[in-house]
């Protein structure tokens, strides 16, 4: 009996923590979206779906949705391609491999603020090493944060820089589970190295690829810190995604209900996207 009591005890504590820290704030946030509030202290006024109507009618919402999608897609594609490439290299035997493997994870260990500041220094208009290099090559200066395209590119660039190590590590772990005899059998079967990649490596990586893309997609779609620290969503909203838009509504425009509505829509969209993803790419057990 006592062991059963212990089990229920743990269960209760776990449930209580989940309710207090995850479910309750989520429910509160969703409920906020039905009120008009200009601060967290004033009296909220019930407005029904008015916040949603207002948000969905604003072009900035659709622009933020598109920006978020471009940012997420762009950074995932490069993270995955580079991640697989690095993992393949790190999976080969070469002198100092373990050292290089260790070093390769470093960017992932750096705090976001440090990465962003480093990047800003590198592209600084006066002293940045990238700026100087561009100058030395005789190319026109790049306005990293002033032109919309370059700003989006720099957010993607920094994200790829930061999270490719994570993707690399995942793929490297998966690669090490592929039996060498499969490659040997394929060599006997007459494949080229490229064919072995597409017929063995990639299919063997598929389960981890499915999970990694999903995780990266969720994190990138909700990404706040990188974009906020780099561009604050600018110039003129060119890099603003739903997370930033929601924050701006709630804390800069004193439209807490609108911010909550954007967050709720974002959450709903992501949920639907994840469900579709699992439907298209089921996590097979083989």
């Amino acid at each position: 009996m006592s062991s059963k009591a212990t089990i229920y005890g743990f269960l209760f504590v776990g449930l209580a923590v989940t309710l207090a820290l995850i479910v309750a704030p989520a429910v509160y946030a969703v409920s906020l979206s039905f009120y008009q509030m200009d601060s967290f202290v004033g009296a909220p006024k019930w407005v029904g779906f008015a916040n949603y109507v207002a948000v969905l009618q604003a072009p900035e919402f659709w622009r933020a949705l598109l920006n978020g999608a471009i940012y997420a897609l762009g950074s995932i594609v490069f993270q995955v391609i580079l991640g697989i490439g690095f993992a393949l290299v790190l999976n080969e035997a070469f002198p100092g491999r373990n050292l290089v493997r260790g070093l390769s994870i470093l960017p992932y260990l750096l705090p976001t603020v440090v990465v962003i500041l480093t990047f800003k220094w590198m592209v600084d208009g006066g002293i940045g090493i990238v700026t100087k290099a561009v100058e030395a090559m005789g190319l026109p200066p790049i306005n990293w944060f002033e032109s919309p395209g370059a700003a989006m590119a720099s957010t993607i660039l920094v994200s790829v820089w930061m999270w490719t190590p994570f993707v690399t590590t995942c793929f490297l772990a998966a690669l090490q589970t592929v039996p060498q005899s499969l490659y040997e059998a394929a060599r006997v079967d007459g494949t080229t190295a490229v064919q072995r990649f597409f017929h063995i490596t990639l299919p063997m990586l598929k389960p981890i690829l499915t999970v990694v893309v999903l995780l990266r997609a969720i994190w990138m779609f909700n990404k706040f810190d990188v974009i906020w620290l780099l561009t604050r969503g600018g110039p003129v909203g060119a890099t603003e995604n739903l997370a930033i838009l929601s924050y701006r509504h709630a804390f800069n425009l004193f439209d807490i209900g609108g911010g909550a509505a954007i967050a709720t829509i974002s959450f709903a969209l992501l949920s639907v996207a994840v469900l579709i993803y699992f439907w298209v790419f089921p996590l097979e057990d083989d």
Partner: protein
Amino acid sequence: MAEIRLEQVRKAYGGVVAVHGVDLTIRDGEFVVFLGPSGCGKSTTLRMIAGLEEVTSGTIRIGARDVTELEPKDRNIAMVFQNYALYPHKTIYDNLAFGLRMRKMDPAEIDVRVKKAARMLGLEDFLARKPKQLSGGQMQRVALGRALVREPDVFLLDEPLSNLDAKLRVRMREEIARLHQDVGTSMVYVTHDQVEAMTLANRIVIMRDGHVQQIGAPLEVYDRPANLFVAGFIGSPEMNLIEGRIEGADFVAGNLRVALPPGVQASGEVVLGIRPEHLALTTEADGVAFTVRVIEQLGAQTLCVGEAGGERMRILVDRVDSWSPGQSVGVRFPAAKLHLFAKSSGQRVETAKP
């Protein structure tokens, strides 16, 4: 179909020599088994024939071609791996067809070959399945089928039955033997299991520490082991090996004295070998007194560990129910079944003209 010739084939990893110069000619259609304990170089030799390991020095020829420097795919070999190495995400059909597709064979011809191999191996009902959905024996058959469809010059099999349970191993052994009879292609087979080697091989190549110990037909190796290692490795239960010396026409060890066949050209320190199944029961007056210590009933036969003249040995005789530990019986050492080895070199000393 082709003859395979290894000429002074050697493999070294840095300073460690895995295979010392191997010379071997595998005749067209022959079934050759590399036998030896793990680390003896048998798998490395096979993998060098396959082209999966580079040869440090020496030459490998398949038919008239020198394949030493060729990639595995250009050697026209097919290989069966211990862990099957089936492509897990492909169906059985695609596993069988893969090697042919990579060679850009006509799809109609591929279909004919795959169906034929599936029929030969009883895999017709499994073609749409994935490897995970098959049993170990079925997966091993797919691995054989993948080699079969290629119609190669030679089949290379690397411990193909090691992952199967004992009963299935016997069945698959028979299937491999039948397959060899049906297709008639040369097969090179690696195993550490002497029963597999004895039952399957036309010739056995026994290896140890990267050196070939003996090459011969199974019964030849059993009847005339070339050295002490082969004597101890081939045959189950193991051959009795007794250290002693030659005195006149007799072998002497402790209180044991065994008459040797006439004309033995040996002297000094030797090792006498006699297989447990060749020690014959007789009366104590006629033979040597053998004291029974441990009795193992095998069903049809009785295996008994005991002592004769102070030397520990085993005898294997037709079933005896009446023995008990401590009892003394008479055993005879038939002169024609004795093996002699020089103690210093471990090499065989001929006891009789073959």
